[in-house]
Every structure is written in structure tokens, then in C-alpha cells.
């Protein structure tokens, strides 16, 4: 069954004709050509497919595309604004908080969501907030450092 679904995608109004029951992850990756969200487990365990929906991190492998109707969806490709990286992206680079990089789009977007909810998280709150995003290479510690540093920068303080 084909539906017409309209939503904001990376800041642009988007309208697609699609079976509304299809999963957002595959519609983004194939129909819309945004391959930033990755398939890692298909069951919402790992967080590689994370996208922002109305500024909150969601697992796109579990969501139907119809569920984002009239909402604001941001993938990793849309986080950069006017050629300027988001502070979280910059901090991941500065802390070398990545190895193979496959989980990184999801990690970055989950961190952005976390900092939106809690701009001044403690280290423990970051660990708890990130705990359901998996990384097999073991970049965890550096990612936590990066998020602390990004939080400081976003609050207007000096980046750590």
C-alpha cells in the first residue's frame, strides 16, 4: 500500500510515496540515499541506525516511515550546518573517538540528543545515556571524553 508521507529531512521538506509500514532505516538508506544510518542488528540493540526525530534519538531500524510523518528527521548527513561541524562532531575528531567508524553516526546523534536533554551531564550520566550504543572497537572512553568536551563548548565555556 502506497502512502504519501511528508516530513522535514535534514532541514528540507521531503515528500515521498512509499509503503508507510516500511522501516525508516531502509527508506532512508535506499529510497532517499542517506547511508549514514547503518544496519547493525535490526532489533534496536546496538544503535548504529540512530537518527534524530524532533531532536530526540530514535532507532530507525524499529520505526515505520509513517511514524515520522510531519516530523523533523536528522541523519548524520544533516548535522553539519553551513559547512560547520556540530560541536559533538568536532569533539569526536579532536579526541580521536573512533576506530572503524561504523557505529559513529549513531554515537554522535545519540550524544547530540543526550546533550539536548541534559546540557551539563556528569560523566556517569553520559555513560548511562550512551550505554545502549554499541562499539566493538572500544572507543568508549574517548567518546565519553568527547561528549564532556562538546558539552562544555556548547555551554559557551572553553572546550576541554
Amino acid at each position: 500500500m502506497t502512502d504519501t508521507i511528508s516530513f522535514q529531512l535534514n532541514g528540507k521538506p521531503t515528500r515521498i510515496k512509499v509503503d508507510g509500514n516500511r522501516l525508516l532505516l531502509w527508506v532512508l538508506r535506499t529510497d532517499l540515499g542517506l547511508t549514514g544510518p547503518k544496519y547493525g542488528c535490526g532489533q534496536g540493540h546496538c544503535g548504529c541506525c540512530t537518527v534524530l526525530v524532533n531532536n530526540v534519538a530514535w532507532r530507525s531500524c524499529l520505526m515505520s516511515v509513517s511514524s515520522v510523518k510531519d516530523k523533523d528527521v536528522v541523519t548524520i548527513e544533516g548535522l553539519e550546518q553551513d559547512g560547520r561541524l556540530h560541536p559533538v562532531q568536532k569533539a569526536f575528531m579532536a579526541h580521536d573517538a573512533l576506530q572503524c567508524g561504523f557505529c559513529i553516526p549513531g554515537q554522535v546523534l545519540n550524544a547530540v540528543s543526550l546533550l539536548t536533554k541534559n546540557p551539563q551531564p556528569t560523566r556517569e550520566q553520559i555513560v548511562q545515556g550512551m550505554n545502549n550504543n554499541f562499539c566493538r572497537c572500544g572507543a568508549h572512553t574517548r567518546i565519553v571524553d568527547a561528549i564532556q568536551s562538546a558539552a562544555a563548548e556548547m555551554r559557551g565555556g572553553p572546550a576541554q
Partner: protein
Amino acid sequence: MNTNDYLALNFKDIKDYSDLYPQSRRDFLKRLGGGIIVCVVMSGVLAAQAQETRRFRGFGRGLPSDFNAFLRIGEDGRVTGYTGKIEMGQGPITSLPQMLAEELDTPLDTVDIVMGDTDLCPWDMGTFGSMTTRMFGPALQAAAAEAKAVLLELAAESLKIPPAQLVAKDGAIFDKEKPEHRVTYGELTKGKKIERHIEGKPPLKDPAQFTVIGQPELHRDGRAKVTGAAHYAGDIRLPGMFYAKILRPPAHNATLKNVDTTPAQKIPGVQVVQQDNLIAVLHEFPDVAEAALAQIKAEFDVPEAKVDDKTIFDYLLRVAPSANVLASGGDLEAGRKLAVKTIETTYLDPYVAHAPMETHTALAQIEDGKATVWASTQNPFGAQQEIARALGFPTEQVRVITPFVGGGFGGKTYNQQAVEAAQLAKITGKPVQVMWSREEEFFFDTFQPAAIVKISSGVDASGKMAFWDYNVYYAGDRGSQQFYTVPNHRTSGHGRGWQGSEHPFRTGAWRAPGNNTNTFARESQIDQMAAAAGIDPVAFRLNNLSDEKMIRVLKTAAETFGWTPAKAPSQRGYGVACGIDAGTYVAAIAEVAVNTKTGAVQVKRVACAQDMGLVVNPEGAKIQMEGCITMGLGYALTEEIHFQGRKVLDTNFDTYEIPRYAWVPKMDTVILDARDQPPQGGGEPAIVLMGALMANAIHDATGARLCQLPMTPDRVKAAIQKV
């Protein structure tokens, strides 16, 4: 391999490239245009590589007839290195350009690297065994030194200054007396096509003069990876491509009884392929293909289950091949008599999954009789051969391109998914992507083999090891070599590591293959002897070590941690372990807290020191140490494949738990300065410690000795109750 072998360069006098390169590579060289091209054949290192190939993979390929390192300086002065190695997070995309920039005296940002493309890059055995820097690195450095010699000759002609008076720096060559007399690499190479070279060994730089090697550099692929611009095999899209989902059996060795694909065929846009045992559904959307696959009705005959994850160790011991003595010395019986305490232990290690976040993925396209396959692989040239064989194509009619790889850990040295994509592309005439589901990844993974180590050892009245009788089953010999001083010893291996046919499914190389098992057993046993002798475990080790390098590494770890001597169990939760892997010496000390009610283990901090010889990118090397420590917590504490016969019961991360943020300890990593020594491995060594490190710390905290991995809360609780 000693340093001389390592640098034994054999520069062939290359008169005609067509003798050396396959057709496709010859075309490539023509397309390259002008500049300087340098190819290197290194006989010494190649021989060592071939030897390691046989050792690690059980098969060998003859020495390649062409070069194994290759670089070009373009007419714009930019340097491009070509390597069959691939980037999967371990960092050669940064460290190899550092080596080129160093030897060529050019800024790092003028150096590019092309990786894992079988048409463009020199043959390579695969990216595993921590061999990129220590084995491929010198070849690349030699090519760079050769290129610099050519540049110096050109500059001498151009500036009319004797070469001895010239200095190379920042991509330019100038008169050391009058620096304004200078010429850039781009100016030197412009309009030229130079394919000459200098006989003999090129003068490599003295490590004391290094300015790029040894400097910490951020991952060069960082920006691409934080913006989503980094493409993995599954992100490559071609016009008209199809996504395939393949019918799988419920267990290994199951046979298809009957199948009905008609319900899938009724779904609009779905194409069903049925050829021999390959049954697949294809669609322009992967999720629709997956839904169609679920419509296929299939019945399989599943072989009767004979073993499971509980009975496997008894079974493996029952069918174990006889002993092959790997090392021996002294007199074991005499040693037994000397011992005042004797300890006999059996250590068990289960099947463990690689579980990279990116599942095995490939996209294949066949055009004009040539297959191009983008694959997530650690072994592009191996994939090329596997695909060529499956398609019946000559090898040069298969090109494997390796985009970024989303983790490998040894699991992506086999390329079944690339073969499947190529077969389906050939059958359908369309570009086809195969991206394994997480369930398929767990099913087809080549697990770390279940293994057993039996040790009988004793300590004499002075706290010295009196004898050591070591038997390892199925893990292989990597890491079984005893580096403590023990006069009476024997080390025996049973079975061929992961190549054994005794396992219910395929097994393979898992990060530092064999060494995780061997180091878990050895370092646990050493701790048991220290405890039996009533000696602090660090002091006991130092008392039984004569290898200065290991002594230095262990002392550094102890100082970094702030170790104070105490007999175990001290209730502090401190553990220590030492190991050697891929030429690197490593030691770590950990502090854990054990919840005695639940058996849960929380690791508070780990101090880790290693001597890895010359370090190209210290930041990258530290990241690898952190990664090893973090990943190693998984096999130490939770990771274990559950199975019934040939059916794998773990299908996703709900039951197969990998390390998470809340597990990660504070880490202090130290790399000892050894820049006068050849570079050693960095991607694997520290992980070998984690089993024993945790076991020893848990013992120190609770008095409970765990001899089976993983040390799950249930097992820890049960062991505590026995104390």
C-alpha cells in the same frame, strides 16, 4: 626475524613494466600519467610473509612475481602510496602516510594512500596478525627512500648542484648553503614520466632524525566518519542495483528437503533465484527482499545434535589429536621432585564471535566479463581468488575494492558474502548487494575455537618455578611459548588451532588467535603458583623472569598502577598479567570490584604498558591498547557462543553481550620508548591479557579461582561459594 632480514631489500632492475604487472595493473600504470613511480620487491620480508601465511592460514601462495610496495609522486608533487592492506579502524590510513611523509621529507597532508583495491595495489596476504606496520611498513619506506633518491638526482640536474650539497624538506629540495636555490617535488616531476631506480639498498633515515614517525596524529578519516561521508561496502549504490536475501539452513550441515518459493514470487518486483543450493530473493529494496524471503516455505533435515556448549570440552578432549611437542628442556620428573607445591589445572575457553558492528557485506557488478566487487573484507586478494573460482573467471577479471571496513578482528578474512553477491550478479545480470543480517553474521562467523589448556606446574622452596608441563588443545601455539625461566619444561600442542575439523561449525582467527587462550591459562597458573608460594604475584613474576624486556614492561605497569606488594588474595581486587604477541611485550594490572552476592565484576581501572619497538603513531597505538582492553573485557566476562549441535543459539546482541560503556574502566596506557628497535604489532597484543587479568583480580578480591571463560556472574558466584 632480525633487523637485517627485515631490511633486506632486493631492488629489481625494472626495464619493462609489462613483465611485472597483470593486464589491469598495466593499464592502470598507463592511466597514471606522469611523475615518478617506484616499485619495491622485498625478498626477505616476502619470504617471512609467506612463512607467516602458512603458519596462520594453513595455506601458502607462492611469492608474488610483482612488487609488494608501490608509490607514485604525481606531477603536482603529491605522493600516493598503494597498499593491499585495508582500514578497519586499526589506523594504517594514518600511520602508513606518516611513514611515507617521513622518508620523503614531505608534509603529511601531501600524502594520499590507496588501500585494498586489487587492480591498483600490490598483492597482499591480508590485514591480520598485526603485520601492517612491521612487515609492509619497511617496504613502503624503502619505496619512499628510493623515490627521494630519484628526486635528489633530478634536483641536482635541475639546480646544477652536486647531490651531496642538497637537502630535502617540506616537499622541496634546496642547496644547504643557499636555501633560496630550491625546487619543489611538483616542479621536478612536472612533465616527466620517470620509471628508473637506483641499485642497492636505499639509505633509510636514522630513527633519531624522525620528525613525522613517532608524532601522535589524529585519525585522518575522522572527518569522513563523523559526517557520514565514510562509505562502507553497504553504502555503495549503483544504478539498477538489487538487494539479495538468501535462504539459510537452521543449522550447519542441514540439508534442504523441500522448498516452495511461489509465495515470494507473487510479491511485485521480487525476483527469485534458485540455482543448486543458492536460493535467494532480490528486490530493489532490501527490506522488501527480506519480507519476501520470510514467505518462502522450506524444510530442512537437521543432523542430530551430538554436542552443545556444555559438553563440547569433554567431546573435544575425547577426539583430541595426539601431542606435538613444541618446546622442551631439562627433566620434568626431576622438576616434579624439586617442587614443594604442585598445581594442576584445566582451563576452558569457549567459542567466541567476532561480532563487528558491520556485518559481512558486498556489492557485485559484472560488466563485459569483468566482476567488480566492493567488499567488507580483511583480505581483498583472497576474496578476489574466491570470487574468481566461484564464477569461473580468470583472477584478473575480478576486481575487489575495499571501502572502509566496519570492524574485522579476524572475522573478515573469509569472504562468503562477496562470493554470494558475485554469483547472484552473474545469474541476474544486475548489480547485487548482499548484506548479512546479524543472525547470519552469528551463524556464519568463523568463531574463535573452543579450546582447553591443561597445565601441571610446581614451585620450589625458594619461590622459583621448578617445572612446567603445558598442553594446549585446539587454540594453536600462538602465545604458548614460555617466557618465564623454568629449568624443566615441556609445551605440547594438540590440534591445528582453528583449522581443526572437530568443531561443529567453522572456526577462525579471532584477534590475537590462540594467544588469548594461552595467556589466560599461563598467567592464571603463574598466579596460582605465586599464591601457593605465598609470594606477591608481581614479585613472583619478577623472581622468575630473566627477559629484560619483560621485566621492564612489568615494572612499568606496576609503577603506573601504583602497585604495592601483597600476597593474594589480598581483598584489594588487584590482578596482573604479562604476555607477548606479534613481537610486542605487554603487561597490565587491573583493579576490580566483585559483587559477592550477584557475582558481577566491575573493572575500576587498568594500567597497561607495552614495548612495541618503534612506534609510528603513538596516539593510534594507544587507541589500539584501549580498544584491546575494552574488547577483551567481553571474552573475559560475558562472550560465549551457545549452541546445540550445529545450530547456533545466539542470533543477536540480546543474548550475546559485548562490552558497553558502563563496563569500561579508567585506563592508563604507557608505550615504552624503543625507537631503535624495529616496529612490532599493535592491534592485538594487549587483548591477550584480559582473561588472566580479570581471573587474577577476581581471585585477589574473593579468593575464588576461575578457570573457565567467560567469567559470568553465575560462574563467579558459584566459584565464590566454593571458597
